[in-house]
């Protein structure tokens, strides 16, 4: 080292494994992550969106049926079918070995949210497809009704299990949000189902869809705030930086503007409903992207893995306890 006095023995430079970031003080192995980032790509957050949209559209369609609102029912059911068709395509595309997708169907495994979800999606997709087919072809009306009910019952599960899919991992911002994330996804799904139906239905038939869109949007905005607060200051950090933050801000803007447009102009103007609906849909997709990227960001920095675990150990053992490790 050049600045050392001639008397001082030169110190070999050591790359300290101690992370010296602001307010950290945690130790790590050359700042390398402890857990692996997921290998999932763009298909997955879009699947969270399409699955959520389809799942919330199914009960919307059933209730519109019961209320003899045929137009709304048709719009919502077709949305459900579209979402249920796109979802498996996205999921298969994301596999490392797409040609082996059927291996998902060789087991039913309650410990694996992905296995549970595969079955929810398979049955939901089949039921929704059968409900639409019987309606279009005008055959087997009783079977058609049963399929509509089945689709509506499975829909909410489809919209929310995707949250469990990612909270059942070691990714800090996902796992620690396991109590709130399903609510965020449910709200976001409700908002998108309402928005899509309001876009596809004449304004006079779309009142329930607009209510669902606006209510869902508000719950989504509130839910994300709640989730971040519960994560605490450290684990909320990944949401405050990089792509997660950008997507979150964009999502909030789109959802708010869309909800305002839908709430105040959607009843009079179809154009406002379509514009507002598109904004709400974009907001819902962006929200999934924000959560998705925040997970990657929290996996990348060992701080989010080590510090909460150290805190837990401290609580377990007292300040001077031996620690488990």
């Amino acid at each position, binding site marked *: 080292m050049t600045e050392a006095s001639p008397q001082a*023995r030169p110190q*070999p430079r*050591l*790359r300290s*494994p101690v992370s010296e970031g602001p307010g950290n003080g945690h*130790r790590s*192995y050359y700042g*390398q*992550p*402890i*857990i*692996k980032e*997921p290998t999932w790509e763009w298909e997955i957050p879009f699947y969270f969106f399409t699955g959520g949209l389809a*799942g*919330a559209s199914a*009960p*919307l369609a059933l*209730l519109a049926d019961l*209320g003899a609102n045929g137009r*709304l029912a048709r719009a919502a059911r077709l949305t459900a079918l579209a979402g249920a068709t796109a979802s498996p395509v996205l999921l298969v595309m994301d*596999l*490392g*070995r*797409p040609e*082996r997708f059927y*291996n998902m169907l*060789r*087991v039913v*495994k309650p*410990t694996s949210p*992905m*296995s549970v979800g*595969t079955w929810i999606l398979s049955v939901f997709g089949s039921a929704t497809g059968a409900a639409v087919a019987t309606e279009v072809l005008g055959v087997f009306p009783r079977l058609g009704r049963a399929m509509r009910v089945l689709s509506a019952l499975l829909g*909410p*599960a489809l919209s*929310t299990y995707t*949250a469990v899919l*990612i*909270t*059942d*991992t*070691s990714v800090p911002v996902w*796992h620690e949000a396991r109590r709130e994330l*399903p*609510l965020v*996804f*449910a709200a976001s*799904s409700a908002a998108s*189902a*309402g928005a899509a139906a309001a876009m596809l239905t004449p304004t006079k038939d779309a009142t*329930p*869809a607009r*209510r*669902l869109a606006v209510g869902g949007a508000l719950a989504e905005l509130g839910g994300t705030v709640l989730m971040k607060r519960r994560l605490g200051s450290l684990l909320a950090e990944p949401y405050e930086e990089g792509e997660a933050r950008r997507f979150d801000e964009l999502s909030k803007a789109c959802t708010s503007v869309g909800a305002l447009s839908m709430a105040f102009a959607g009843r009079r103007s179809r154009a406002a409903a379509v514009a507002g609906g598109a904004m709400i849909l974009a907001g819902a997709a962006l929200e999934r992207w924000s959560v998705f990227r925040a*997970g990657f960001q929290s*996996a990348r920095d060992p701080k989010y893995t080590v510090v909460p*675990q150290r805190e837990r150990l401290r609580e377990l053992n007292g300040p001077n306890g031996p*620690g*488990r*490790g």
Partner: protein
Amino acid sequence: MSEATGEPNILPGSGTTDAYNIDGIDRPETRPLIPLGQKSYDGEAQPRMGFFTDTTVCIGCKACEVACKEWNDVPATLMGLTGNSYDNTEDLGADAWRHVTFIEQRKPVYVQQEAGLGTPSIEGEPDFRWLMSSDVCKHCTAAPCLDVCPTGALFRTEFGTVVVQEDICNGCGYCVPACPFGVLDQREGDGRVWKCTMCYDRQKDGLEPACAQACPTDSIQYGPLEELREKANGRLEMVVEAGATDARLYGADEEEYGMGAFFLLLDEPEVYGLPPDPEIVSRKFGSLWGSAAVAAGALAAGVVAAFVGGSR
């Protein structure tokens, strides 16, 4: 290391007869609903085998990494020089099933020398120490990778280890973020997930895994897990008595994850890139599914509420 016995498959029994009931700890939640063929190993069950990696005698030769790659046909990884001491493997992954970590610290080493520990010192550098450790898959009792695998590609072997079946894995990638140790990863250009098998093929023939056989200092020890745990406790006592008060066992009991591969470390786990207290993420059914059930109910209620006051 185990001596060749004429009947290598018959090892001292632990009474384990069920693949899902390891060391008497029943894990009904990991039992497949639809058993595919045989559900338990019955007479074929072996005592749970494991690795004890005693890092105090690791000399950082990386023979374990090389032997592993050779035996298991793991593709070469030439990542270039990292600048992180002698570690150019970086981390465990699809193409690195053993990973030797190198940690340089300013800390007096005389204690280690007195204890006969192989930590080298540099001439004229009395307060420099080098920690080395060969990391590997922990083959956990409560393995989240095994829990979340949607195809059953990951399974529990008759040796109590966790192995990916390469003919089943479809590369969904769920096990990758599930693992709290960052062991599993998808292999580029292959799409499937790969990890340490504890040399399942060698185990079946009563041989020790390639890494353990190649280790010149017995830093990697292989054997029935119960025996290794006992041995490790003895070794810990020895090095602590010799003055290495920082020494500690990592994962040497059935508590929490129940690691089938555990370590004797000379510093905190996170210094070696290990999580200090990993939570068992996949066993929290209440908070994982309970909140989803509440959310699904809320969603259904929200849709119903949208129709209050008319369906048009």
